[in-house]
C-alpha cells in the first residue's frame, strides 16, 4: 500500500484520540536574547513521506565539504583513542556520519492498536545557545549572528567534545583530516567533526538550504525564529499537535510539529539514533553562577574590611 495513504489515514484516525495537552505546547515565552535575529526551520512531521530527496540534496550541496582523509591514520598514543573512519561508508544514509549530515529517522508506532510509521528528517537542531559551540575549547565550533552553528574544519582537532556535550550527539568524527595531522598527530586530536551547517554558504547567497528546496512535500519552512515559533503554534493548534525544539536545550532553531506526542515518538526511536526527549537548558546551570561571580568580589572586600576594623578596634 502507498505509504503516503496509510500515513494520512493513520493521522486522521488517531490524532484526536492520541492528543492530550502537551507540556511542550505552551505558548511562546522565548526571551529576546539575540534570538530575534535567529533563523529557524519549522518541520511539519505529518507531511514527510520519507522519500529521502532532502538527504540526497544535502549530500550533493555539501559534497565538497566532506573529508578526504589521509591514510594510514597516525598511530595513536595511548591506544585508547582509536581513529574513526567513515570514508568506506560514504553511502550510508541511515545515520549521521561525516558524509551524511541529514538522515531520515523512521519511527514505527502503535497508537490505539493502529500500526503506522512516521519519517522525520534529523540533523543538527541549531540550538539557540549551542553547547557544542560554547564549550569547544578552541573556538573551532562557531555560531553566527543568525544562530547557525558550524564547525570550522580548518581548526577542529576532532576531540569530539562537541558530540559529547550535544544533547543529541549530532557531530560525527572522521580521522585522518585536519589540523591535528600538523601538530602532534599521535598525541592530541583525532580528526575533524562534521555536522549540518544549515548550508550557510547558500544562505549567504540568498538561497535556501538544499534540503528545504529539494523537498517535494514542503516539509520544512525557514524564517526568523519568532515567526517560525508563531507558525508552529498555529499549526499545532490547528492539528491538535505537539511541538519539539522550542524549549529543548533552552530553545533550538529547529521546531518540529507532530500530530503524535513526542514521548511516543521518542519511545519508537532506535537505539543510537538522536532521541526526542525533553532536554533541559544545558548551558544554564553554569550561567546561573555568573551572578555569584559578580557578588564574590564584594563579599571578599567586605570580609577584608571586617577583619581590618576588628583588628583596629582591638588594638
Amino acid at each position, binding site marked *: 500500500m502507498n505509504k503516503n495513504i496509510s500515513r494520512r489515514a493513520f493521522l486522521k484516525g488517531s490524532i484526536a484520540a492520541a492528543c492530550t495537552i502537551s507540556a511542550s505546547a505552551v505558548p511562546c515565552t522565548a526571551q529576546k536574547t539575540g534570538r530575534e535575529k535567529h533563523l529557524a526551520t519549522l518541520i511539519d512531521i505529518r507531511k514527510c513521506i520519507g522519500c529521502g530527496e532532502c538527504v540526497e540534496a544535502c549530500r550533493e550541496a555539501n559534497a565538497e565539504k566532506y573529508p578526504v582523509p589521509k591514510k594510514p591514520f597516525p598511530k595513536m598514543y*595511548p591506544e585508547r583513542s582509536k581513529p574513526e573512519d567513515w570514508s568506506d561508508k560514504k553511502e550510508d544514509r541511515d545515520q549521521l556520519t561525516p558524509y551524511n549530515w541529514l538522515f531520515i529517522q523512521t519511527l514505527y508506532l502503535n497508537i490505539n492498536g493502529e500500526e503506522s510509521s512516521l519519517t522525520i528528517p534529523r540533523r543538527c537542531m541549531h540550538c539557540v545557545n549551542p553547547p557544542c559551540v560554547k564549550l569547544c575549547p578552541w*573556538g573551532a565550533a562557531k555560531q553566527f549572528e543568525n544562530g547557525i552553528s558550524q564547525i570550522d574544519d580548518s581548526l577542529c582537532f576532532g576531540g569530539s567534545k562537541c558530540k559529547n556535550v550535544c544533547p543529541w550527539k549530532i557531530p560525527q568524527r572522521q580521522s585522518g583530516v585536519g589540523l591535528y595531522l600538523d601538530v602532534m598527530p599521535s598525541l592530541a586530536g583525532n580528526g575533524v567533526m562534521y555536522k549540518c551547517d544549515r548550508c550557510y554558504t547558500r544562505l549567504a547567497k540568498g538561497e535556501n538550504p538544499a534540503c528545504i528546496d529539494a523537498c517535494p512535500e514542503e516539509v520544512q519552512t525557514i524564517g526568523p525564529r519568532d515567526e517560525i515559533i508563531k507558525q508552529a503554534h498555529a499549526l499545532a493548534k490547528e492539528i491538535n499537535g505537539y511541538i519539539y525544539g522550542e524549549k529543548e536545550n533552552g530553545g533550538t532553531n529547529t521546531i518540529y510539529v507532530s500530530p503524535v506526542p513526542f514521548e511516543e515518538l521518542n519511545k519508537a526511536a532506535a537505539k543510537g539514533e538522536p532521541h526526542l526527549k525533553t532536554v533541559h537548558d544545558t548551558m544554564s546551570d553554569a550561567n546561573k553562577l555568573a551572578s555569584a561571580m559578580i557578588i564574590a568580589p564584594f563579599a571578599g572586600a567586605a570580609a577584608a574590611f571586617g577583619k581590618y576594623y576588628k583588628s583596629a578596634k582591638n588594638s
Partner: protein
Amino acid sequence: MKNKGLASFYSILIFFLALTGFAQMPIFKRYYIADIPGLGWLDRFYITHYMHYIGAIIFFAFSAYMIVSYIMEKKTRITISGYIRLAILEAIAVTGILLVLRNFPGYIFAPNFIIFLNFAHLGLVMVLLFVSLYCVSFKKKWVLEKY
C-alpha cells in the same frame, strides 16, 4: 603573601582552577587520568565547567579580600615578581570573564575574537604556571615588609 595559610589556600585554588580549566580540553579520558578513582568527574564536561565557575567565584572573592587587606593594612609592598604575577592573573581573569559572557545565549563576540580569547586564556595560564614555578624555586615573594 606573608600568611602561610593564605599562601597554601591560593596555591590550592590556582591548582583547582588550572585542573578544571585543562579539563575543558578532552584530554583527561584520553590519558587515563579520569580512570583514577575519585577523578572520574574530570571527564564530565558539564561538571568541570561548573566547577571551574565555582573556582572562579572563590578566586574573585579571595582576590578582593587580598587587595583590600593590602590597601588597608599598608604594612607591606608588592615586589616586582608580585606585580608580574598580578598582571598575568588579571589578564586571565579578564579573558575568563569575557568567556563567561560568551556562554550566555546570543551573539556577543565574533567567532575570531572567541578563538583569541580561548588561546589567550589558556596561554596566560601556562605563563602563570611557569612564572609561579620560577618564583617558588627562587623563593620570590609576593610582598615584602615595609621598612
